[in-house]
């Protein structure tokens, strides 16, 4: 089975076969050129609307340019398989990217104050006039622990919000119309329980689950560097991902259930080729798990998305994005038989590189972030998080958060970078680099297949070794001066610079602990216990391959019965195991 799949995937990576497939697709459409097809699609989808722009000199700009590709064939167009040039025929000209600044610190009421400020500053804008918030949680929450867990003191409300019960969302999102609010949750092992808390809170407020939009990053797939020992066992994690995907496909169809974070893999130290390859390997592992559980990939894959890092190699960042979209489309179509366009289109949320932020000369980070963000825009991403320049010093200040937003606004509204889709398309350099990254990515995927698949590679420690070795090599290049980091190993100055650093509220921990203790006293404990027992039974079923989707349903019921994140996590860990 594995060998056969590897064989197919080897052919997918072969450019000639890819071309043949394209030529066949073309002949089926009566030799319509990609450009003609694109024109027809745009006309059909957007009626008479014009997407041309004029620059200051009065030159009219087409929304996309085309010509012959490196092989002398008519070039692929945006919105066409395999989506190298973007997933939409018209992109920013119609719908700009969504700015999602990371938000969250202290207890829910404190984060709510920041949300209101962000909204006032013109942030928090989602697609189609929705409000959008990108919540980051403190480490205990992110890992699925309650604030009163003895091992987490000192980290509560630090670097993110402390949330552990459904009622916390009633504070965080009080008065918001949740059908018009996109809630993005960035977290690790706590993801399944956290989604349940939000869904339970929304239900209590009378919102229908099938109207709720948002995403949970669900980083339980990540064993590359950001998962830590609090994650579930590798096999347990991938089983839970399938469970959540199946549940949401049925009951919360607008919810994005999985974010494969190329960003996190890069931040853990992998290079761009490795990071794209491991991201795709994770998708393969998830899809294989779904197939094993009897879930049709086409029913869940459209709700998977990517989180990609934009860092130090401007042109490589763009090429890797194009290669990622292409490989994703090919794998899902040719290896998993996906047919829906949503299953073949990699939606990408961009984030600038946190590991490039320096504590030395921190204002330099503003410039780094701007170039990273520009690379993301030129790559055609769907959403954007620009880090705060002072994050290497601690939690961002309000001023820094605002400057990140301004960076995005300047690119969107001053630079003109939004007028033309895939503006780098056709560049000899970018196209060649895109092809080369694709080739190397398939090589790594073949290697992982030969090693028994991603989960076996995680369990043997091989993946971790690859990533650590790459991180170490990068560090050595900095140390030796082979790689320049301005202000760190070159153009340094000794003057200590004093910057305002956001100091988290030391009272947050006390408030959070008192709150959860009161919550435990005041809830209906019999109902809560029964719900947790039902969760355990569902977890056992799902772990043994039965009733996929029932864990998520039981989590929502438990959250509604006032079970806390930590209590639900304990049940899940008992059944799905722990990473270490």
């Amino acid at each position: 089975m594995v060998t056969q799949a590897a064989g197919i995937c080897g052919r997918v990576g072969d450019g000639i076969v890819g071309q043949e497939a394209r030529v066949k697709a073309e002949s089926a459409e009566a030799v319509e050129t990609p450009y003609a097809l694109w024109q027809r699609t745009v006309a059909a989808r957007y009626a008479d609307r014009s997407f041309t722009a004029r620059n200051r000199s009065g030159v009219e700009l087409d929304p996309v340019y085309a010509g012959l590709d490196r092989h002398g064939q008519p070039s692929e167009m945006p919105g066409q398989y395999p989506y190298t040039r973007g997933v939409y025929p018209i992109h920013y000209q119609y719908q700009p990217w969504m700015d999602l600044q990371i938000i969250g610190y202290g207890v829910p009421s404190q984060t709510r104050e920041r949300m209101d400020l962000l909204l006032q500053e013109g942030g928090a804008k989602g697609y189609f006039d929705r409000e959008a918030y990108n919540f980051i949680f403190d480490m205990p929450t992110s890992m699925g622990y309650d604030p009163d867990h003895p091992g987490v003191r000192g980290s509560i409300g630090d670097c993110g919000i402390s949330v552990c019960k459904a009622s916390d969302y009633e504070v965080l999102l009080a008065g918001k119309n949740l059908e018009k609010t996109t809630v993005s949750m960035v977290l690790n092992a706590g993801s399944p329980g956290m989604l349940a808390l939000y869904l339970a809170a929304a239900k209590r407020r009378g919102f229908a689950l099938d109207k709720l939009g948002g995403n949970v990053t669900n980083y339980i797939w990540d064993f590359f560097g950001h998962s830590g020992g609090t994650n579930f066992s590798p096999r347990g994690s991938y089983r839970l991902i399938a469970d959540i995907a199946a549940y949401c496909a049925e009951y919360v169809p607008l919810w994005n259930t999985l974010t494969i974070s190329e960003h996190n893999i890069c931040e853990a130290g992998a290079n761009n080729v490795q990071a794209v390859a491991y991201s795709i390997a994770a998708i393969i592992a998830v899809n294989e798990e779904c197939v094993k559980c009897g879930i049709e990939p086409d029913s869940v894959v459209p709700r998977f998305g990517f989180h990609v890092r934009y860092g130090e190699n401007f042109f490589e960042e763009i090429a890797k994005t194009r290669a990622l979209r292409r490989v994703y489309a090919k794998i899902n179509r040719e290896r998993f038989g996906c047919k829906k366009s949503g299953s073949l289109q990699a939606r990408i949320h961009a984030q600038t590189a946190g590991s490039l932020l320096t504590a030395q000369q921190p204002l330099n980070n503003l410039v780094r972030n701007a170039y990273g963000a520009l690379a993301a825009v030129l790559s055609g991403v769907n959403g954007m998080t620009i880090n705060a320049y002072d994050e290497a010093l601690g939690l961002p200040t309000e001023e820094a958060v605002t400057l990140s937003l301004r960076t995005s606004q300047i690119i969107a509204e001053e630079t003109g970078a939004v007028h033309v889709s895939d503006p780098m398309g056709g560049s000899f350099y970018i196209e060649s680099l895109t092809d080369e990254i694709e080739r190397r990515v398939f090589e790594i995927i073949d290697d992982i297949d030969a090693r028994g698949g991603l989960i076996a590679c995680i369990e043997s420690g091989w993946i971790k070794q690859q990533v650590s070795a790459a991180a170490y090599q990068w560090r050595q290049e900095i140390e030796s001066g082979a790689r320049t980091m301005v202000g760190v190993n070159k153009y340094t100055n000794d003057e200590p610079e004093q910057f305002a650093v956001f100091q988290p509220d030391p009272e947050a921990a006390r408030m959070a602990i008192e709150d959860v203790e009161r919550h435990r006293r005041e809830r209906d404990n019999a109902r809560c216990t029964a719900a947790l027992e039902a969760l355990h039974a569902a977890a056992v079923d799902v772990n043994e391959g039965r009733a996929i989707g029932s864990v998520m349903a039981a989590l929502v019921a438990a959250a509604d019965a006032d079970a806390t994140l930590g209590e639900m996590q304990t049940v899940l860990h008992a059944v799905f195991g722990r990473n270490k």
Partner: protein
Amino acid sequence: MSAARKGFDAATLLTGVRRSDTLAISRAITAIENETSAGCELALAVADSRGGCRTIGVTGPPGAGKSSLINALMAELLPRFGRIGVLTVDPSSPVSGGAVLGDRVRMAAYSGNPNVFIRSLASRGHLGGVTRTTRSVIDLLAAGGMDLVIVETVGTGQSEVEVAGLTDLKLVVCAPGLGDEMQAIKAGVLEIADLLVVNKADLPDAERTMMHLKAMLGYRGHDERRAALKVSSMRGEGLTELAEAIAARLAQSVVTSTPERRMHPRLRLAEDVAALAAALVREGANPELDALAEAAATGALPRHDAVMAALRALAEREITVAPLR
């Protein structure tokens, strides 16, 4: 002269070891590993003190889940054996000699348990899956009051058979779907197994792997002591059965002679003398030895003469260390 760190002389350490003092045990292991004179003396002092302490060797390819299995087994073994020592061996870098020792991260639940002593050892260039001084470290843990010592080998999947000569019971751990790694098991490690453990029994291939291993056992003839078991560390399945099998076999086996105890007495003595003599020559501010070493290095003195002189110097060395009892 690290042996002279405060409270680091052999006699003080040995007293501490016999009182089961954690710090003394730990520092004594360091001395043994570094093969200092104090370490050699300690090793000699505890060489015959295993008493009722039983030992298990755990080996198997990478990814088989050895550390996780030991972690999962601990809850079953602690009630049967009062105090447990665990030695985990990781490879040293052949280039720098340094090492990253990460096995115990999987045993974090027992970090603070007073009845569990876990020590990470670097192979320091020794092949065979254990370290050069593992035998003495086991002896020391026994002297320190451990009732059971578990040795987890490097786990490179190669022939790590040395642990067989060091421990009473050999567990070979494997997992389904390791492909080529299974070949390595066949190649030699399997030969030493008393208990074959198929970990990750929750995987679909587990049964096939089990049949495969049983077939290999069968091929080697019937043996009451040998058995193959399936467990899942993650789900906690099969652990009680495995612990019972371990306890039963350890209860049967009377440690009469491990291979090394059959070693020729003269060879045994030679090794002990060599180790201690080498440590004594390496250590200490001794102008006479410095001069001899220098003279031998420059060729001023034939090396043969330097060695004979060093041996005489050692023989005349004033014995300052209290006799170890």
